[in-house]
C-alpha cells in the first residue's frame, strides 16, 4: 500500500487541524496559515506603498515646478500626469490601504483575537492572497502595455474610461478594470472568511460583546465591503463590455448614461471609505486603552455607532455627485444623511478622548501614532461636514480642498493607523521589538510633514484651485498660489524620505531587535495570551474567555491589567458593585 493510499483510507483530518508544513514552499509561499498570509499581505501592501509614494512624488513635483525635469526621473508629460493621478489613487486605496489594514492585520489578528487555530477557510484565505497578488501584477503590467496605464482617474469616470478615444489609453484601462475586479473578488473571499471566523470560531466564553473592538471594526468593514462592492463589480463588467463588446451602458452616443457609472461607483465608494477607515480605527481603539491603562470608554456605544455609521454609509453616495447633473432636489436628503454620519463618528471620537481622560498615559511609538491619527482625523472629519453640505460643495467641488479633505481622512486612518498597528503588533508578528528611537523619529517626521503637505492644500482649494490640472501656471489666478505648492511639495518629499526610518527599523529589528516577550505591552486581548510569534495553530490549548477585553486598572487586582483568558473575577468592577 503506498503512502497515498494510506492517506486516502484514513479519515480526512479536519481542515483546520493541518499539521505544520515542512517544505519551504508550503511554509512560506503557498501557506494556508493565516499568520503567514497576513505577513504576505503586509509585504505586498508595503511594496505597493513604495510605488504609490513614487507616483505622489512625480505628481507633487509637477505641481510645484511644472514641466521641469524631475530628479530621478525625466519630464512628466500631460498624459503621463493623468496616469500618475489615476494610479496613485488606485494603488493607495486598493493595493496599500486594504491589503495592510484588512489583509495583513485582519488576517493576522482575527483568529488570534477570537482564540481560533486559524481562519474558518484556510485554503480560501490562501486563494484570496494569490488573487490580489495576481491583481497587483496585472496592475503593474498595465504600465508597460502600449498606450500606458489607465488615465481616467481613480474613480474611472465614464465616458473617459469607457472609450479609448478620450484618454488614448486602450489596454491599460482594460487591465485596470481587470485588476480591480480581481482585487474585489480577493476581498470578497477575505470578507466571507473574516465574517465566518468572527461569528463561528470564537473561543468559549467570548461573546460578541467581549470581542476586541478591532474585530468589530473588521467585521463591519467586511460587511460593508461585501454589500457595497457587488453593484460596482456589475459596473466593471459593463464598463469592460463597453470597451470591448460594443455595448453602450455608459456612452451617451449609444444610448447609455455616464451618470450610471457614478452611481454604481459611489454606491461602493462611500462604504469603501469606511472599509479602509474602520480597521484603522480598530487598531487605534486597541492601542489607546493599553497605553492609557484604562478600560475603553463606551464599548457598546462604539459598537452601535460603528454599525450606524456603516448603515448610513449606504445612503450618502450622491454627495459625490452634487454637481454631476443629478436632480437638485436630491441634494437635500443626501446632505442630511451625510452630515448625520458625523454623529456616530463623533461618538467614537469622544469615546477615544474619554478613554484617555484620567488615564496614566504612556507614549511609546504605537501610542504616538494612535494619538496622531486621532488628532489629524478630526480635521478630516470636520472638513467633511463642509463638503457634505451641498451649498458649500458646489464651490469646493473638484478643488484641492477635496483632495486635502480626502487625504486628511484616509491618511490618519489607513497610514497613521496602519503604522500604529505595525509598531504595536510587530512584536507579536515577528517576535522582536522595533527600535523606539527610530520609531519616534519616523512618527515626528511623518506627522509634521503630513500636515505641512495638506493644510496648505486646504488653502489653495479655498482659493479655487482645481484639482487634476497638469500645469497650474497656465492659469493667471493660480499663479499667486504657486509658493504654497512649492512648500507642500518640499513637505511631501520630506514625508516620503521620512519613511526611511520605518524601513530601516523594520528590517534591522527583524534580525537584531530585542526579543519580544509574550505580552510586551501588558495587554488583555487574546493575541497576547500566546507566544511571540504564535506557534502553528496559535494556542497550545483552546483559551477560555472570562471577561471583557479592556479590564485595566481593576480595583483589587494585583496588576493593572487582567487578561481575558485568566480565570478570576468575571464581571467588570462596576457590575460587581452594582
Amino acid at each position, binding site marked *: 500500500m503506498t503512502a497515498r493510499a494510506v492517506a486516502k483510507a484514513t479519515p480526512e483530518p*479536519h481542515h483546520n487541524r493541518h499539521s505544520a508544513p515542512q517544505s519551504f514552499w508550503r511554509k512560506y509561499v503557498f501557506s494556508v496559515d493565516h499568520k503567514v498570509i497576513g505577513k504576505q499581505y503586509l509585504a505586498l501592501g508595503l511594496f505597493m506603498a513604495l510605488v504609490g509614494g513614487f507616483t505622489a512624488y512625480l505628481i507633487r513635483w509637477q505641481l510645484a515646478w511644472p514641466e521641469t525635469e524631475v530628479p530621478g526621473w525625466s519630464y512628466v508629460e500631460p498624459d503621463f500626469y493623468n496616469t500618475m493621478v489615476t494610479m496613485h489613487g488606485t494603488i493607495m486605496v486598493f493595493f496599500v490601504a486594504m491589503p495592510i489594514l484588512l489583509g495583513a492585520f485582519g488576517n493576522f489578528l482575527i483568529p488570534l483575537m477570537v482564540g481560533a487555530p486559524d481562519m474558518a477557510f484556510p485554503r480560501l484565505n490562501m486563494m484570496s492572497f494569490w488573487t490580489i497578488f495576481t491583481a497587483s501584477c496585472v496592475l503593474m503590467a498595465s504600465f508597460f502595455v502600449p498606450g500606458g496605464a489607465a488615465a481616467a482617474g481613480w474613480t474611472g469616470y465614464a465616458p473617459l474610461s469607457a472609450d479609448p478615444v478620450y484618454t488614448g489609453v486602450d489596454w491599460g484601462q482594460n487591465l485596470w478594470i481587470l485588476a480591480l475586479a480581481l482585487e474585489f473578488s480577493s476581498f470578497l473571499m477575505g*470578507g466571507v472568511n473574516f465574517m465566518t471566523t468572527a461569528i463561528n470560531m470564537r473561543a468559549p466564553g467570548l461573546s460578541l460583546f467581549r470581542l476586541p473592538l478591532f474585530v468589530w471594526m473588521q467585521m463591519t468593514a467586511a460587511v460593508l465591503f461585501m454589500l457595497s462592492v457587488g*453593484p460596482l463589480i456589475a459596473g466593471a463588467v459593463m464598463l469592460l463590455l463597453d470597451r470591448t463588446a460594443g455595448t453602450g*451602458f455608459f456612452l451617451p452616443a449609444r444610448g447609455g448614461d455616464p451618470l450610471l457609472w457614478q452611481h454604481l461607483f459611489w454606491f461602493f465608494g462611500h462604504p469603501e471609505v469606511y472599509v479602509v477607515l474602520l480597521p484603522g480605527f480598530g487598531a487605534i481603539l486597541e492601542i489607546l486603552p493599553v497605553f492609557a491603562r484604562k478600560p475603553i470608554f463606551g464599548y457598546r456605544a462604539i459598537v452601535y455607532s460603528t454599525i450606524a455609521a456603516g448603515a448610513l454609509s449606504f445612503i450618502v453616495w450622491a454627495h459625490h455627485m452634487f454637481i454631476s447633473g443629478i436632480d437638485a432636489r436630491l441634494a437635500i436628503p443626501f446632505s442630511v444623511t451625510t452630515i448625520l454620519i458625523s454623529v456616530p463618528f463623533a461618538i467614537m471620537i469622544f469615546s477615544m478622548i474619554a478613554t484617555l481622560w484620567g488615564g496614566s498615559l504612556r507614549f511609546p511609538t504605537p501610542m504616538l501614532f494612535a494619538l496622531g491619527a486621532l488628532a489629524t482625523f478630526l480635521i478630516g472629519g470636520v472638513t467633511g461636514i463642509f463638503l457634505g453640505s451641498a451649498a458649500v460643495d458646489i464651490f469646493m467641488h473638484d478643488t484641492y480642498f477635496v483632495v486635502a479633505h480626502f487625504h486628511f481622512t484616509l491618511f490618519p486612518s489607513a497610514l497613521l493607523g496602519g503604522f500604529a498597528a505595525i509598531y504595536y503588533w510587530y512584536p507579536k508578528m515577528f517576535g522582536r521589538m522595533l527600535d523606539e528611537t527610530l520609531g519616534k523619529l519616523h512618527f515626528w517626521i511623518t506627522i509634521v510633514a503630513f500636515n505641512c503637505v495638506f493644510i496648505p492644500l486646504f488653502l489653495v482649494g479655498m482659493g479655487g484651485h482645481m484639482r487634476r490640472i497638469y500645469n497650474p501656471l497656465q492659469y493667471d489666478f493660480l499663479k499667486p498660489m504657486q509658493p504654497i505648492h512649492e512648500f507642500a511639495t518640499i513637505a511631501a518629499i520630506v514625508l516620503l524620505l521620512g519613511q526611511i526610518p520605518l524601513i530601516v527599523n523594520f528590517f534591522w529589528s527583524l534580525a537584531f531587535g530585542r526579543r519580544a516577550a509574550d505580552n510586551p505591552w501588558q495587554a488583555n486581548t487574546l493575541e497576547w495570551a500566546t507566544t511571540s510569534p504564535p506557534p502553528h495553530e496559535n494556542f497550545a490549548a483552546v483559551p477560555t474567555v472570562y471577561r471583557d477585553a479592556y479590564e485595566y486598572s481593576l480595583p483589587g487586582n494585583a496588576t493593572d491589567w487582567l487578561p481575558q483568558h485568566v480565570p478570576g473575577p468575571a464581571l467588570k468592577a462596576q457590575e460587581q458593585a452594582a
Partner: protein
Amino acid sequence: MAHSEHETRVFTEQPIGRVGMWWFLASEVMVFGGLLGSYILSRIAAGGWAAETAHVNTRIAAINTLILVTSSLTIVQAHAAVEAEEHTRARKYLLITVLLGLGFLCIKGFEYSIELGHGFTPASGLFWSYYYTMTGLHGLHVFAGVVVNFVLFLLAGGRRWAAVKQRVEYAGLYWHFVDVVWIFLFPLLYLA
C-alpha cells in the same frame, strides 16, 4: 469535513460552511442587485423598450424557467436523500440536476443563436447590451453550479461521502440563488 472541533466554540450552532455560504450569497445578491437596478432605471429613462422586447422569445424562456425551477426541486431531493444517507438516490438527483442545468444552458445558447441570427448583438442598443450582459452573467453562474453539482455527483460515488454530505446543502443554496436570479430576469427581460 467534520465540525465536531468547532461545536464547542460555536455560538451560532451553524456549521462554518453554511455561514460562509450565506455571506457569499449576500454579496452575490448585491452583484445582481446592482445590475437589475441599473436595468430598471435605464429602462424607465429610455421609455420602456417595448419595441426591443418584442424580439425576445418568451416561449423558449418560459420552457427554460420551467427547467430551472424543476432543477431546484431535484437538488432539494438530492439534499433530502443525503440527509437520509441514501447514496444512490442522492447521486441520481444530483445527476438530474446537472442535466437540467446543462439543458438550460443548451436552450439558452439556441436562443442566443436565433437572436444573433436576426442581427441582435450586444452592440444593437442598450436593451440588447443589458440582455446579453444579464443573461450571460447568469449563464456563467449556472455553468459554475453545474460544475459544482457534477463534482459532488462524482465524489458521492466514492469513499468521500463524508466530505460530500454537507456540501450538497451548500451547493443547493447556491443553486437556489441562481434560480431566484432567473425568476427576476424572466419577467424583467421577457414579460414586461
